[in-house]
């Protein structure tokens, strides 16, 4: 009994510094954002309780509705492409061919790069007059495109996100693929299973939990991602790339409306919480 108390005390001693700090910089701000979302608040003024007014205000705001829509669309399309291409890349690198390790190293580079650098590179790559994308297009098709203009900007930010995100999927899938016993494939081949059947009934079941976790993590991070889009478009042109994080930023730091910014932050919480709960479940399984 005495030993148990002693061990518990040791446990608290070891974990207190970390969680005290986290309380200060994360858990308390987190509770505070929920609290402040019920107050009318602008910079320099005392907050006044206003009930659900902030929530009503953002629900009536067409820009907020558009933000939810574009965030969901952006996340869904980007994660789908990362899943498909990440799996394709992983299957490619599971084969043996000359130069595999060089190509694989290059393919992993985007994962290690900072998002703000990726944004800077594509800002230049997509430049209308001098960017490589248009130089290539011009020499092949004889035309130039406004990559960050109104028609293509959503496509372009998805392209950037997919380019940066594929290696995370690929490397995790490659690791999972290697845990599938070779003998399963050999047995299936002897039994006359086609390549598609082997993929469908051996590969997919073998990596399905890794797929689940990787997709959920990527969904959360894509939905919450701020850096590349803010650097590339700052939410524009117009409101076209006003994803939710940028909406929150503009409410707080351009419109100085802390209350609605807080309400918009709180709206994202149930989305993230439910996704993370599934991850916890999958990890504990």
């Amino acid at each position, binding site marked *: 009994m005495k030993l148990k108390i002693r*061990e518990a005390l*040791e446990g608290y001693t070891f974990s207190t510094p970390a969680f005290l*700090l986290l309380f200060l910089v994360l858990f308390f701000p987190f509770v505070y*954002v929920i609290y402040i979302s019920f107050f009318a608040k602008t910079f320099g003024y005392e907050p006044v309780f206003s009930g659900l007014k902030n929530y009503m205000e953002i629900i009536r705001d067409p820009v907020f509705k558009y933000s939810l829509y574009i965030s969901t669309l952006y996340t869904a399309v980007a994660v789908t492409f990362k899943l498909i291409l990440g799996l394709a890349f992983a299957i490619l690198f599971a084969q043996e061919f000359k130069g595999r390790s060089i190509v694989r190293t290059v393919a992993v580079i985007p994962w290690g790069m900072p998002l703000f650098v990726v944004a*800077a590179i594509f800002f*230049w790559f997509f430049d209308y007059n001098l960017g490589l994308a248009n130089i290539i297009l011009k020499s092949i098709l004889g035309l130039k495109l406004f990559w960050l203009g109104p028609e293509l900007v959503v496509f372009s930010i998805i392209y950037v996100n997919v380019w940066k995100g594929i290696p995370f999927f690929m490397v995790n899938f490659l690791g999972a693929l290697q845990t599938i016993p070779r003998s399963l494939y050999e047995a299936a081949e002897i039994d006359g299973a086609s390549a598609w059947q082997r993929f469908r009934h051996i590969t997919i079941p073998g990596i399905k939990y890794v797929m689940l976790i990787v997709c959920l993590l990527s969904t959360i991070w894509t939905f919450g991602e*701020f850096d590349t889009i803010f*650097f590339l478009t700052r939410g524009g042109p117009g409101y076209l790339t006003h994803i939710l994080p940028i909406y929150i930023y503009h409410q707080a730091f351009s419109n100085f409306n802390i209350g609605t910014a807080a309400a918009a932050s709180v709206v994202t919480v149930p989305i993230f919480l439910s996704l*993370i709960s599934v991850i916890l479940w999958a990890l504990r399984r």
Partner: protein
Amino acid sequence: MKRGTSVLMKKVLIYISAVVVFVWTALPLYWMVITAFRPEKEIYEGLVIPREFTFESVLEIFGFKVEHVTVGSALTPYIINSTYVSLIVMGVSTILGMLGGYALARMRFPGKDLLSSLSLFAYVFPSVVVMVPIFFLFSTWKLVNTHIGLILALLSHSLPYTLWMLRGYFQTIPIDIEEAAFIDGCSRFRTIFRIVFPLSTPGIVATATYSFILAWNNVLFPLILISRTDLQVLSIGIFNYMKADFVPWDRLMAASFIATLPPTLLFFAIQRYIVAGLTAGAVKR
């Protein structure tokens, strides 16, 4: 014969895919590197293959300018600030993460599972949710425009990561070793500091490195917390180039190249551990 052609077909398909993967990933990177190392005038000629090689833009980033005077445009202070802030974040999150991570992995105390889940939640949760309250609270606490404030904010992201990763890593150290030391009369603290931590050096180094990368790559917190140029970090220095009316493409790419090197090289050094970390629970071994 038929089998021979299908094997050949497969080979051809693999090599074509490998070339596609290589070009898809390398093209934007190539565009960054050649722009960073070619003379400024060449940029406006729209040539895909550079004719001249120069370190001019890189030198300019570090404040050495050859022809026209560019005082104030050098990024050296930003680079120093980024390095210094990231190193402190790394130190604090590693030490607190080691203590807390060990408690979560090995010690028995009420609330342990809750704290473990909290650290995963905290790591996965996107920072945009707490962007508004952190700015607001930090202004009341007089932490805006200070490095302490920036470091604390960055810890809200790095510390949950080190906690969760090191917890996982310590769990892989065989418990028999600890029990043997304990039976031999080694005290708990001695066991931890003399046996567990030294045995975990690779995992600790990898986790510390990644927490450095997380801090270096961050955009959101310096953007909202720091407005004084002398305190600003590299990510925002690059953003300032992108915001300019006439973007200095050569310097933007040279700065991007410099900003990419540390995190990318470090990432490749520790990649093995990072990949094993998050999805470890989902891979059957």
